[in-house]
């Protein structure tokens, strides 16, 4: 089993109004050094295989076709192998 941790980021050229709005909050807090706040997506899931290559292929497929929109987003991920205990299976 692999734990996949996916980070999906909008391209820098795409406006992130959410990040801008949150940064206004930072200014109100007096945190004047905070710049370029971007709010992106972090997604975690398991891939039920012991073969790392096939896990990578499946995660790439999931990211390209559904989790990220390649027109405006880039993604990166890590895979960590782990063995579930009996209760977790």
């Amino acid at each position: 089993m692999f734990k996949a941790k996916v980070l999906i980021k909008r391209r820098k050229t795409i406006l992130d109004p959410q990040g801008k709005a949150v940064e206004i909050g930072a200014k109100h807090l007096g945190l004047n050094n905070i710049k370029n706040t971007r709010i992106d997506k972090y997604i975690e899931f398991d891939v039920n295989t012991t073969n790392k290559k096939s896990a990578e292929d499946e995660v790439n497929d999931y990211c390209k076709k559904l989790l990220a929109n390649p027109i405006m987003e880039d993604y990166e991920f890590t895979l960590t192998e782990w063995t579930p205990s009996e209760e977790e299976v």
Partner: protein
Amino acid sequence: MLSETKISYGGRSPKFGVVVFPGSNCDHDTYYVLRKILGFEVIFIWHKRTSLEDCDVIILPGGFSYGDYLRTGAISRFSPIMNEVINFANKGGYVFGICNGFQILLEAGLLPGVMIRNESLNFVCKDVYLKIENKNTVFTKGINGKASLKTPIAHGEGNYFADEDTLKELEANNQIVFKYCSNDGTISKLDNPNGSVMNIAGIMNKKGNVLGMMPHPERSTDPVLGKTDGSLIFKALANNIFN
């Protein structure tokens, strides 16, 4: 009681299919105006079905399909009916996406570009004015004597974005059908409700059989709501598709 008389447009009356996704909320409004106000044959099509039931026009209605999770329209795009809708569109069938329906068409790749959050971060619900940028489409041909169409919008993610090459292509092929404008048809940033690039409110594909628009023509069709400009789009479509 409202009349349910069938009206013939352009010699033959088209059959409409309104796709219902979990979270669609303009499906009944659309069905209601098409059938009771305009007199067309119309059916609902549940998103898990795999047949378009010989419809001439498929409408992807507004709403918040799948709760807008991940990205608007991203999950609906994989509903079983969408394979049929994509095949139908590729064969030249007429597909009309309104609001969330437009977002689904973008995710499905039937129209270019993406929809991002409104520049203001607000959910904007108000009447806007639309300038018809291309009067020679199946959706707009015959709509004359109007400087603008008064139609409501209601969305949080209607900020249309596409890269420069895509925008150039949209312009070169006259694929931009509607732009946000003032009452008299003037286009300026002041009348852009969501930050859409070039004030874009609606675009079609190159072939001209697939249209997506953020404003809701079904909410400006029944005269009881005080505005009927949206009905002109449905009538134009019905008049033009068999001609």
